[in-house]
């Protein structure tokens, strides 16, 4: 590691060492507000550093990239961490959690997600993935007074351990067949030079795909998602649904754009995964009676749709996928922020009965929630529609008509369950109890997410142009 590497790594260093510094301060100074403010400031400084300080080299220690695409996601995850901390402020103070530990874990997770999105080496990919999942194991279970959180943490830990096993085995097989872990070569050499070892290399890529499937909850591997979302506190759930999945998808986009030929052998598998995932998510959500579980199934459907974009294997598909990741992250964070802002001493509103008639008590946040849910469903005019439209258009151009039909079917089904929540919220005959009024940081996050959903829905060109310039 040289000074140039360290400079190129600056945003991640700010996040990681800033988090560690806050952890140290928090050991002696237990006042939560300054620690949280420090954490939010650190995340914002990291984002600014990623945007303003040009990296002296495009590669960090041979493991990570510091190119525009990597920097874009570094900024996104740093901002997400700041928003996650803003949403978590009241939760930390009410539950009397250690603010220092919580802040440092969120910043550390953001550093891991930023590294994962910029991985150009399978070793870097593996370590970055473990980095932020480790932080999430702890964050999910951080409220020791809640049994459901402990259960969710344990489930996520066990599933994560299984996924890690698949990932490590897959990477070992890829190495055995290609002789390298650096990303373009690990895939390119397999087709050319591997000879008889090529099937093992493909098996390795398949195992990596299974591990990725666990992390972003693709269909046969999605069963942990509703339980974990339900048990995890909403501020953590917001990060888990957006950052942890988005970072893995971003890494996949990077891998795919580098590693063309291998994926042609995996296309059928990806096709099947995408189709099953979209259907399982949409149909699974129909019977849910709990908003957080509903959001979990919704995320399963969205990850399936993302895979459709990845399948296209062209610039339009990758741009659409990246756009989708950003939009999904913003929208989903907004939904979890609304849930967190309504939490009071009775806990977070989750079951549908608790949402009934809430639109008359809290009209603004209920309306925002409806807008966010409609964006998740893909109502024209919202960012969610543009994201789905871009993905399906790229898929049609690449000739995946069947997948597009399945995706549209899943979207139509998803309208049914999102609209059900909207109807519950504004049901007149059942006036709900008053929930928490929310704090200024929570309202700010909700407002920013709502504004972004509308802006990217009406003017998607802003984001598309940016992504088009950054794609590797």
């Amino acid at each position, binding site marked *: *590691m040289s000074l140039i590497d360290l400079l190129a790594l600056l945003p991640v260093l700010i996040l990681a060492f800033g988090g560690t510094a806050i952890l140290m301060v928090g050991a002696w100074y237990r006042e939560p507000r300054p620690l949280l403010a420090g954490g939010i400031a650190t995340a914002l400084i990291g984002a600014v550093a990623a945007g303003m300080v040009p990296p002296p080299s495009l590669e960090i220690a041979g*493991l990570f990239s510091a190119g525009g695409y990597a920097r874009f996601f570094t900024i996104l995850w740093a901002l997400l961490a700041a928003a996650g901390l803003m949403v978590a402020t009241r939760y930390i103070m009410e539950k009397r959690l250690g603010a220092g530990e919580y802040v440092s874990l969120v910043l*550390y997770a953001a550093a891991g997600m930023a590294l994962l999105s910029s991985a150009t080496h399978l*070793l870097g990919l593996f370590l970055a993935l473990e980095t932020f999942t480790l932080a999430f194991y*702890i964050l999910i*279970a*951080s409220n*020791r007074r809640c049994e459901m959180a402990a259960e969710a943490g344990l489930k996520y830990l066990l599933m994560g351990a299984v996924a890690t096993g698949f990932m490590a085995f897959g990477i070992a097989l890829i190495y055995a067949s290609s002789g390298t872990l650096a990303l373009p070569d690990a895939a390119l050499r397999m087709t050319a030079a591997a000879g008889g070892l090529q099937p093992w290399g493909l098996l390795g890529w398949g195992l990596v795909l299974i591990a990725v499937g666990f992390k972003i909850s693709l269909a046969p591997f999605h069963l942990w998602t509703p339980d974990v979302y339900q048990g995890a506190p909403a501020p953590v759930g917001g990060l888990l649904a957006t950052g942890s999945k988005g970072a893995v998808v971003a890494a996949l986009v990077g891998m795919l754009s580098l590693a063309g030929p291998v994926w042609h052998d995996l296309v059928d598998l990806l096709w099947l995964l995408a189709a099953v995932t979209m259907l399982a998510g949409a149909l699974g959500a129909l019977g849910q009676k709990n908003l957080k579980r509903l959001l979990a199934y919704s995320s399963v459907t969205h990850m399936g749709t993302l895979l459709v974009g990845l399948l296209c294997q062209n610039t339009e598909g990758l741009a659409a996928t990246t756009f989708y990741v950003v939009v999904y992250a913003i929208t989903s964070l907004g939904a979890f922020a609304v849930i967190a802002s309504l939490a009071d001493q009775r806990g977070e509103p989750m079951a549908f009965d608790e949402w009934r008639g809430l639109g008359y008590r809290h009209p603004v946040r209920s309306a925002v929630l409806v807008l966010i849910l409609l964006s998740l469903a893909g109502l024209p005019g919202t960012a969610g529609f543009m994201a789905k439209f871009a993905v399906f258009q790229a898929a049609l151009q690449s000739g995946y008509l069947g997948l597009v039909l399945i995706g549209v079917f899943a979207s139509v089904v998803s309208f049914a369950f999102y609209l059900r929540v909207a109807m519950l919220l504004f049901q007149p005959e059942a006036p709900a109890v008053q929930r928490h009024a929310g704090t200024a940081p929570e309202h700010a996050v909700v407002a920013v997410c709502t504004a972004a959903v509308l802006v990217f829905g009406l003017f998607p060109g802003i984001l598309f142009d940016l992504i088009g310039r950054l794609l590797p």
Partner: protein
Amino acid sequence: MTTALFYILGIILLAATLMCITRRNPVHAVIYLVAGFFALALMFYLLGAPLVAAWEVIVYAGAIMVLFLFIIMMLGLAPQEVPEGPGWQRWLPLALLSASLMACTLLLILEDPAAGQKVGGFYLAPQALGEALFGRYAMAVEMVSFQLLFATIGAYLLGRPLPKGEDQ
């Protein structure tokens, strides 16, 4: 010879790991895992990495497994009652595994009495390993050390007693 040894060690490793995950008694499981680690260490030696083989024995089979045993005993997970039936039946699989491991080690010594350099056609000197770890892959080592730091924090955060007057 080396190829044959590799497959024998592979079978031992798989058998030991299978026995490990099917045992009901955690102490027995740990002992089988140790046998598996020994087989793995010999495999690393066959691959031409004697230092990694030594670490496998010292760190995994030695330190970490002893830690496991400590934790099992501290938590009182080890069953107290003695199961029925003659003892040798329970220990026969482990004895077989250990005997085959011993035979493999002896064969390896016979094959390569000068220790290293000749077995696999590739030899990773400790110095080269250290240079790779702390030169080219320094960043990876730093990431792992960060992970260990946060794993410690997590263990402390989730394991410390709650303030007085609060139950779980």
